[in-house]
């Protein structure tokens, strides 16, 4: 079909490939849209938390040490680096390297989740639950467990995705692009943690 015919009919011929949005493959674009939606979810939770914290007198400050949260931050940031190395290995067709670094990322994710659960258990042992807070307003516990729980759910989902995509990439069913898209999600989980740490942990540090 000529240019003139196209103009006359007002649409490209059937079967012609349209230019992908922002020159990004459809799968990657879908992940970006998911990330935007998830950003709104976390932003909603964190902003609501901020308003509740400001509006509540005598907001508790139960955290005495930064060791655990600092270690968790170090692990999550390191996992983003290992993910990047894995993706770069995949881009140069180094399958075993990509698989190894992806699995290291997943192990770091598991380690993060274990430390997180350990912290939760410590707080639950002190009497904090979703509806009860031994240090004052129950809103603190509700907000803390909801926000960190939502993030932990994302980490857990990310670990499962990393293992599944890593194994399928190793087996030749998935390509380097698929690993990169999973990496995008993992970096997002890391990015959210950068906001959770100051708002939920460091602002509630007892001096």
């Amino acid at each position, binding site marked *: 079909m000529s240019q003139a015919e196209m103009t006359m009919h007002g649409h490209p011929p059937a079967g012609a490939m349209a230019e992908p949005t*922002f020159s990004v493959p459809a799968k990657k674009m879908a992940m*970006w849209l998911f990330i*935007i939606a998830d950003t709104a979810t976390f932003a909603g939770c964190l902003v609501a938390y901020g*308003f509740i914290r400001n509006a509540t007198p005598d907001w508790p400050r139960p955290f005495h040490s930064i060791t655990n949260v600092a270690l968790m931050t170090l692990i999550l940031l390191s996992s983003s*680096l290992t993910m*990047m190395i894995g993706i770069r290995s995949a881009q*140069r067709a180094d399958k075993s390297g990509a698989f190894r670094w992806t699995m290291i990322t997943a192990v770091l994710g598991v380690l993060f989740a274990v430390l997180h659960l350990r912290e939760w258990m410590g707080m639950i042992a002190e009497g904090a639950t979703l509806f009860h807070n031994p240090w004052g307003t129950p809103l603190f516990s509700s907000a803390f467990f909801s926000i960190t729980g939502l993030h932990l759910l994302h980490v857990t989902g990310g670990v499962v995705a990393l293992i599944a995509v890593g194994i399928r990439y190793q087996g030749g069913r998935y390509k380097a692009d698929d690993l990169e898209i999973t990496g995008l999600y993992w970096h997002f989980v890391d990015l959210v943690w950068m906001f959770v740490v100051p708002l939920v942990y*460091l*602002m509630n540090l007892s001096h």
Partner: protein
Amino acid sequence: MASTETHNSSGIGRDIAIYVCLLVLAGIQFVIAYQNISPSQMLTRMLAVAIIEGAVALLFFMHLSENRGLMLFVVIFTVAVILGMQYGWTDSYRVLYGVPWAR
């Protein structure tokens, strides 16, 4: 092939530099937490550092810097959604203080 390997090794070098940068920024947040300042000042400083941290991760780890169109779309769309939510949140104070049993 050699140029690809050079590109990849320099890429990993850049990734490590960004990782160190993120670690330093995270460290700054922890330092701010121990400063003797008001909660609002602390919140402002920590959020500023977190936004820089997030921007670095978005631009370099998530490669948003390589696609200007996508970057504008993601940033404008996300900021618009978050700002839109602020309209509702501030109104929610009315619910907190406006109900008959609030006082």
